[in-house]
């Protein structure tokens, strides 16, 4: 029966699933099938979002809810299943392990599903690229799934069509060799995709597969070129931060961007937790043009233009060879070094060199993906010379599928009219293609253009054929992590808009249409038969296990030994000495990446980790540059470059390199996405094949007009207040010494009554907070926090319960950044509580500062009296239709109405649920049983939560630590949330 339901949605006549096989498989492991897998309710239109209607959603048709009763209150129906799935307990969420991909690489996640609605995405602890953590993009995918702007139907020349018939049509009219067939796709590390592509190539030898990656990560970027040249084949470097005592990052943000940033951050944090002098602690040197998360916690940050990085590397090499007697791996490098001597930043270089030399095999030099191949080669030379290769860096085979060329080659073929059928599989290349490729203009030279996309975006508008793409939570697939670990992607919900997976499209091209599920299954079976010795049954059992755990544990691809052929050095273009004048530096955005998340309200409203800007992109310029140009925050400037001009508002960013103007990509979208429309400016046209990430600025002229930038933090100074305490490793107080902070004075207010049960408390370690904002999105997803839009952010009415405060110390051109996650501190003597006239905010027996929404009349006195200003108010009915995605809401948390106050609850719903379970199951409540959303997702595990009365708990231990302090201790509110002082490890000579 369920199988029927399941198939019906494919009205396009796709073949039936092999129901029998999958029922057995489904029973054998935790993959939902039939209704369980795809509760049809999930595509019911969002009508009302009362919690009970969510329960109603446990079955198909709320449409039936028409029976009228005569009661005072509104009708309310109980809609049970017709056949209740075996492992579904209405009211208890289920968790499925799956994989999400960025730039082809897979990240293992665990998705929470309420009666078939995916509501939250967390990291998969067993996946090497996640380790239980989750970034902002991965978490925001759940919102993207329900995005009402997603493409709804397949079309050809403006009329709806049956996609697979059209694919067969393409297949037939493409000749036997298929010389005119080109497939343009995003990078992929999916074995199934690789297999499908191979089949296409096999059927049409003349066809070519072009891979386009806007992010330019790994094999498809400069690093890839460098490795290919040096080692002869595609490699990917794996960095082990947990063994790197000295980290030098050059124009790189390894902790907050890139496919492995979660693992990097975890490793980095493991050496960043020195809580007493003498403990091992790493030291981080960062040279970058514009502040990043990594730069924010650097011990020594250098603000240099992107174009100066190569010179900096050469200088570092020179210092190591001359000053530290490090042997240069090759004469050609020595020659290069000798040819280019710079005297800039001597102390920084000397210190870094000394540290690197003193920690051979325990150092790590990272080069950003935006740097030219030469920089990566030099980086490898440094690492090799210092013996870091093999110790902190290992090279493995690149899991990414190698294509037959890049966009540039496609451009040439288009011009020569060699392309008849262009099949674009996602990626929105028309937006993200380098400026001088002008794909938007050239693409029309292909006779037949098909696009598989989530949205009717820029590319879709230029393609005569369109197929809606299945969301990553809607379709089967597989992927590899950087280290080659394979994992499976399983659907959580039936495609809401009949979306199709990329592999299904390719399969339909070469033969009868097949389902992604079968394709994936076959791939994995073949892999086993290839590996031999495992029969089908074994394969299925293994597949079942992988599916249950979400990852093929311990199957990382083996390393490859690297012998660099330095003669390749000659092939790298050596950038000419950097000229004066401004440089326009283009970068992927921390919130919309390459533009693919521009339609995601959570990410648009997420304050940028550095600038705290929402709903916009802007030109970051240094205070010095602002003085020189005579512009103020928000003023419009026109940046004229060799590749074009850009008119963009200004943000004066402390720590920005003086001669660099940074603009992030992915804004100024022109697609059909409504949220993304009219936000920011599109900087892609300024990119070029020769310089993908920068442009030489000819002139910067300030315009009379200005632009209102919705920035969530306006004041960056601590004003000398006891808010954020710092300490150096050398100066860490031992318990014997005086505490960092004098205890508060006597208080007239009585201490609150504590119950017998646990006393919940939180400790946040600012030493490891990199400000990546994953916790902010996690909180938003967990607690149904609405999005308020730009106008309300401008009126400082953003609703985030958890914000990351950013302060600066030192001079504004080269300041030290200080980060502090700030949410309700759950004060024991809470100032908000005694001023509420209706007892809407009270103190619980277990030490929570409770907010009872339904008792709140909205006097806002509590917020006025909150020293931390962490309370948020529903100025309008924010949780109404404008908040588009009721299906994504967490039924365990009340959706707040207009006019009530709200704030961080320590995820009280998780606390209460855990308590109830322990009561029902009769097992005592473990102190670490409750994990808050922010804590769960934090890549560096900066947040600790638990029962402070339990001496065994980590929280109790940390609260007692001499580094622990309370923000505004002198206010006497006795906050439950405490912080660990920010411990730095500066080089003695640079302090």
């Amino acid at each position, binding site marked *: 029966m369920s199988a029927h339901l399941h198939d019906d949605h494919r009205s396009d006549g796709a073949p039936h699933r092999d129901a029998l096989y999958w029922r057995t498989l489904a029973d054998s492991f935790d993959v939902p099938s039939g209704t369980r897998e795809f509760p049809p309710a999930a595509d019911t239109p969002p009508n009302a979002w009362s919690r009970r209607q969510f329960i109603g959603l446990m079955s198909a048709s709320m449409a039936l809810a028409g029976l009228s009763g005569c009661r005072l209150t509104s009708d309310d129906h109980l809609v049970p299943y017709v056949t209740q799935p075996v492992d579904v307990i209405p009211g208890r969420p289920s968790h499925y392990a799956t994989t999400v991909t960025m730039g082809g690489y897979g990240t293992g996640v665990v998705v929470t599903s309420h009666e078939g609605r995916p509501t939250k995405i967390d990291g998969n602890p067993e996946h090497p690229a996640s380790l239980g953590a989750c970034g902002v993009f991965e978490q925001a995918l759940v919102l993207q799934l329900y995005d009402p702007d997603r493409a709804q139907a397949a079309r050809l020349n403006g009329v709806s069509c049956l996609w697979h018939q059209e694919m067969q049509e393409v297949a037939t009219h493409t000749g036997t060799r298929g010389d005119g067939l080109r497939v343009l796709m995003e990078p992929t590390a999916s074995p199934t995709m690789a297999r499908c592509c191979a089949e296409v190539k096999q059927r049409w030898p003349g066809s070519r597969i072009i891979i386009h990656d806007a992010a330019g990560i790994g094999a498809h970027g400069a690093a890839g070129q460098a490795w290919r040249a040096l080692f002869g084949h595609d490699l990917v470097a794996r960095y082990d931060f947990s063994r790197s005592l000295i980290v030098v990052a050059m124009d790189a943000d390894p902790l907050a961007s890139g496919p492995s940033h979660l693992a990097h951050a975890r490793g980095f944090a493991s050496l960043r937790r020195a809580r007493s002098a003498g403990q091992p602690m790493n030291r981080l040197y960062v040279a970058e043009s514009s502040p990043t998360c990594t730069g924010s916690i650097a011990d020594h940050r250098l603000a240099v233009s992107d174009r100066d990085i190569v010179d900096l590397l050469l200088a570092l090499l020179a210092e190591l060879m001359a000053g530290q007697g490090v042997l240069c791996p090759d004469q050609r490098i020595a020659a290069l070094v000798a040819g280019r001597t710079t005297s800039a930043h001597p102390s920084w270089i000397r210190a870094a060199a000394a540290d690197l030399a003193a920690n051979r095999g325990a150092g790590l030099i990272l080069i950003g993906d935006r740097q030219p191949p030469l920089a990566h080669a030099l980086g490898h030379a440094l690492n090799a010379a210092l013996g870091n290769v093999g110790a902190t860096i290992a090279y493995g085979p690149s899991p990414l599928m190698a294509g037959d060329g890049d966009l540039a080659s496609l451009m040439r073929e288009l011009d020569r009219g060699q392309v008849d059928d262009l099949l674009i599989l996602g990626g929105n290349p028309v937006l993200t293609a380098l400026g001088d490729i002008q794909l938007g203009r050239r693409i029309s030279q292909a006779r037949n253009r098909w696009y598989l996309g989530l949205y009717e975006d820029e590319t879709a508008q230029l393609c005569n054929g369109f197929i809606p793409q299945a969301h990553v939570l809607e379709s089967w697939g597989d992927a590899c992590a950087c280290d080659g670990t394979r994992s499976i992607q399983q659907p959580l919900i039936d495609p809401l808009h009949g979306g199709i997976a990329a592999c299904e499209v390719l399969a339909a091209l070469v033969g009868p249409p097949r389902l992604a599920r079968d394709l994936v299954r076959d791939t994995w079976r073949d892999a086993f038969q290839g590996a031999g010795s495992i029969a089908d049954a074994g394969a299925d059992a293994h597949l079942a296990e992988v599916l249950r755990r979400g990852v093929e544990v311990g199957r990382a691809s083996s390393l490859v030994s690297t012998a660099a052929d330095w003669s390749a050095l000659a092939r790298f273009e050596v950038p000419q000495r950097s000229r004066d004048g401004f440089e326009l530096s283009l970068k992927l955005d921390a919130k919309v990446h390459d533009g693919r998340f521009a339609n995601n309200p959570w990410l648009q409203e997420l304050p940028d980790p550095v600038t705290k800007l929402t709903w916009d992109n802007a030109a970051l310029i240094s205070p010095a540059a602002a003085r020189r140009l005579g512009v103020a925050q928000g003023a419009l400037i026109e940046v004229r470059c060799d590749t074009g001009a850009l008119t963009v508002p200004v943000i004066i960013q402390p720590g920005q390199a003086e001669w660099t103007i940074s603009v992030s990509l992915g804004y100024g979208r022109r697609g059909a996405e409504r949220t993304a429309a009219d936000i920011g400016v599109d900087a892609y046209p300024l990119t070029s094949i020769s310089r993908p990430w920068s442009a030489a600025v000819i002139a910067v002229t300030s315009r009379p007009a200005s632009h209102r930038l919705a920035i969530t933090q306006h004041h960056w100074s601590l004003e000398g207040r006891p808010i954020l305490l710092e300490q150096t490793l050398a100066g860490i107080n031992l318990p014997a010494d005086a505490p960092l902070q004098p205890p508060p004075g006597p208080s007239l207010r009585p201490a609150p009554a504590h119950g017998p049960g646990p006393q919940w408390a939180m400790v946040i370690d600012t030493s490891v907070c990199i400000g990546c904002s994953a916790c902010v999105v996690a909180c938003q997803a967990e607690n149904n926090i609405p999005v308020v839009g730009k106008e309300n952010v401008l009126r400082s009415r953003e609703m985030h319960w958890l914000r990351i*405060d950013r302060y600066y110390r030192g001079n504004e051109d080269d300041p030290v950044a200080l980060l502090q996650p700030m949410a309700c501190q759950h004060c024991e003597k809470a100032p908000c509580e005694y001023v509420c006239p209706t007892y809407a905010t009270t103190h619980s027996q277990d030490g929570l500062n409770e907010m009872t929404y339904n008792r709140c009349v909205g006097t806002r006195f509590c917020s006025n009296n909150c*020293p931390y200003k962490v309370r948020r108010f529903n*100025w309008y009915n924010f949780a109404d239709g404008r908040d588009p995605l009721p299906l994504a809401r967490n039924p365990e948390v009340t959706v707040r109405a207009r006019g009530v106050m709200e704030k961080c609850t320590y995820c009280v719903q998780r606390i209460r649920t855990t308590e109830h379970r322990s009561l029902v199951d009769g097992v005592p409540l473990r102190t670490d049983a409750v994990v808050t959303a922010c804590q769960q997702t934090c890549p560096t595990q900066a947040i600790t939560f638990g029962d402070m009365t339990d001496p065994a708990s980590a929280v109790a231990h940390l609260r007692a630590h001499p580094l622990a302090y309370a923000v505004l201790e002198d206010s006497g509110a006795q906050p439950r949330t405490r912080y660990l002082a920010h411990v730095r490890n500066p080089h003695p000579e640079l302090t």
Partner: protein
Amino acid sequence: MSMAGQHAADPLLIGTSDDAALTQRVLRPLWSPHPALGWLMIPAALGSLVFITALCYTFVTGIGVWGNNIPVGWAFAITNFVWWIGIGHAGTFISAILYLLQQEWRTSINRIAEAMTLFAVVNAGLFPIAHLGRPWFFYWLAPYPATMELWPQFRSSLTWDVAAISTYGTVSFLFWYLGLLPDLATARDTAPTRLRRRLYGLCALGWRGAASHWRSYRIAYLLLAGLATPLVVSVHSIVSLDFAVAKQPGWHSTIFPPYFVAGAIFSGFAMVLTLVIPLRALLRLQDVITMRHIDNMAKVLLATGSIVAYSYLLEPFTAWYSGDPYERYIQLVGRPAGPFAWVFWLTIVCNVLVPQVLWLRSLRRNLVALLIISLLVQLGMWSERFVIVVTSLQRGALPSSWSSYSPTLIDACLLFGSMSLFLFLFLVFVRFVPFIALSELKLLRRKEPVETQVSP
């Protein structure tokens, strides 16, 4: 407060017309109203309409239509509320305290002042309800047997407010109406048309002026005066506690209660002058409301103004002396130099410098100057409340949450709309109600000749 004018040569009542003439004279505006007042009513009515529209819009849409935000959770609404409540004080002060102190000069102006109090309280009462996020639940602030088995929290100063203001409103009304009774009766007896006789008779509640009536009237009046007197002090003290009990820097201050009460009477008398001076000119009441009244009120203005000035001096000093960095920042940097510093300096000019000119007798007797001064004082008092509410909130303890505030059109509509409503109600009052305590005036007339020579 004995400023009944040792040196004041002016009488409290000019002319020796008999009671009938006096009645005729004082009630004339009721029977043959002044056209100017009628014309004035049109803009006032329109303004009130704007006020009501803005209120409804707020109720329907949510207070997001105001400029408030986090951290500035309170702004215009609370400022207006405190301002109006303050203005109300003069009425009770004049009618109750001056009565107990047997200050005869209160007689000709107390009715006007009491009416002003009532209308001010009506306005003041609207804002706290309007500023709620969910105004339809305002009754949760009152103690009643809910099925939730919950009471309001009596530790919260907002619940004190509810009690204080409702009491104040009730007592003020009773006091005002009790005083009206004899005059309503007089109006009934002298009304030209039958209908009016009926209506005023209805309102007079059967007052016949019998000796027994007068006796109980006197006792009741005295008791109410005694009852109202503590309210003059208590109400604004409690309103000031809305701020003083909070930890918010700039609010957490012990001098607020006396400081607020002084400010209240200050602004109240300014409002009385603002109303009386034009009215006196318009209706030619120079013989009833004499220069003596004007002069005395100017003196009260000067006295209370000086108390307010002293409080202004004291605030930054205590902040500095306390050594609390947050208080210091607000008082010594945030207000004089931060956003809205100009409002702060406007306050200083209007409330501290301007009233000091009243030391000059000539200016106390210059009606035009007095009118301007009284207007400036009210402007100053409004800005003072704005400074206290907004500049404190926008500079809290954590610099990361520092933000600014900008009012919206709706905010403006509500402020000026409430003024229009006040004016409208007052004009209606002047048109239909004996706005000068006639009976007391007649009493005074008997004493007057003596009165002018010797001071009480």
